[in-house]
């Protein structure tokens, strides 16, 4: 189904009466079933959010009470840092390879677990087992990593399966003691309504993404290795952040201004992000790179998409090597 067609058929409000609304309700339920199947949750545990990052607040504030301790890590998303300011909290420090040790957690804590770090691709292998409630940040891992069995709430971002941006999927487990932190009169998690066309488009995207991933995972992994090897062998004074997920990679280059590097790469047709201070709105270097001890200057963050080809990467690496050399001259 093409996106314009989705907008034509999913305009009615699925909660109203009438034939059109009933067909919209069917589309919504089918989408929920699709997500439930791929994400490993029940369809009645799923809510949609028009602003994915709001899910951090909705999930965690609903699990925390004023005296509960929030345990999180220093490579968690800044949204979680902001929530932690309002509660007793414990920030766990990552090792230089990105591992977090959850042994300090107690059975009265609410713990935040990031399955995959979106800047570096670090996959967290540790699992907090001793906690009252477990929030899982699955915004970067998408369907790649299964939820731990003791999850209480989990958040995904539609862009992680190449779906439309501006759509989050929030699951609240039926076993969790979650209370809606927003003013509410009914059992809805999110007052909504969230765009039904986006939900339907994202459900189609997750289906095709999962099907493609089976065939393309090996290629993505090979491309990641090729980029790492090239940077290590050919570009002096480069610092690769620890990684894990094959679709993500973060590398820093000593004596290079990241803003210039990103701009030149963009001019040559390559869209890359950066964790360097000069590229951030608050002029602070990435807290993730700083926590890992990875160089923060001259940083680029790469996402390898399903459509990325070896040819693209070959050209990119040559341009990168040349640009880094020019900027250092």
């Amino acid at each position, binding site marked *: 189904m093409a996106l314009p067609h989705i907008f034509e058929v999913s305009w009615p409000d699925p909660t109203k009466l009438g034939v059109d609304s009933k067909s919209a309700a069917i589309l919504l339920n089918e989408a929920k079933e699709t997500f439930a199947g791929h994400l490993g949750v029940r369809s009645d545990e799923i809510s949609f959010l028009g602003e994915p990052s709001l899910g951090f607040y909705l999930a965690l504030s609903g699990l925390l009470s004023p005296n509960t301790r929030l345990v999180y890590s220093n490579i968690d998303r800044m949204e979680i840092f902001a929530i932690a300011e309002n509660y007793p909290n414990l920030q766990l420090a990552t090792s230089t390879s990105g591992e977090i040790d959850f042994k300090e957690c107690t059975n009265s804590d609410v713990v935040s677990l990031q399955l995959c770090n979106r800047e570096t691709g670090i996959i967290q292998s540790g699992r907090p087992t001793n906690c009252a409630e477990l929030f899982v940040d699955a915004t970067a891992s998408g369907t790649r990593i299964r939820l731990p069995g003791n999850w209480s709430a989990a958040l995904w971002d539609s862009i992680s399966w190449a779906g439309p941006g501006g759509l989050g999927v929030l699951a609240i487990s039926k076993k969790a003691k979650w209370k809606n932190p927003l003013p509410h009169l009914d059992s809805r998690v999110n007052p909504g309504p969230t765009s039904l066309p986006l939900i339907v488009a994202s459900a189609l995207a997750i289906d095709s993404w999962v099907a493609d991933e089976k065939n393309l995972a090996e290629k993505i992994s090979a491309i990641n290795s090729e980029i790492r090897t090239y940077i290590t062998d050919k570009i002096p004074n480069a610092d690769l952040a620890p990684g894990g997920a094959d679709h993500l990679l973060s590398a820093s280059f*000593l004596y290079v201004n990241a803003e210039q590097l990103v701009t030149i790469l963009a001019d040559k047709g390559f869209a890359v992000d950066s964790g360097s201070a000069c590229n951030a709105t608050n002029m*602070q270097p990435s807290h993730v*790179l700083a926590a890992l*001890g*990875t160089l*923060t*200057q001259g940083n680029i963050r790469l996402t390898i998409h399903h459509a990325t080809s070896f040819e693209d990467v070959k050209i990119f690496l040559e341009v990168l090597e040349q640009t880094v050399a020019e900027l250092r001259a």
Partner: protein
Amino acid sequence: MEVLDCLGKRCPLPVIELAKALKSKPIASRIKLLSDDPASAPDLIAWARMTGNSVKELGDSAFEVTKLTD
């Protein structure tokens, strides 16, 4: 100790100027680098690790750098 004043200069300039200043100096030379850029503390430690030199954070935007390799 020689002082290299990079106050007000943004990353990566303090690290670039430090590397330039150290280039002609003999091994075991020390420089006091002043830098208030928020990226300097993590980046000087990473620079020392990558290049095999030594950095000690003195506080108040000051770092003591010892050249250990050419």
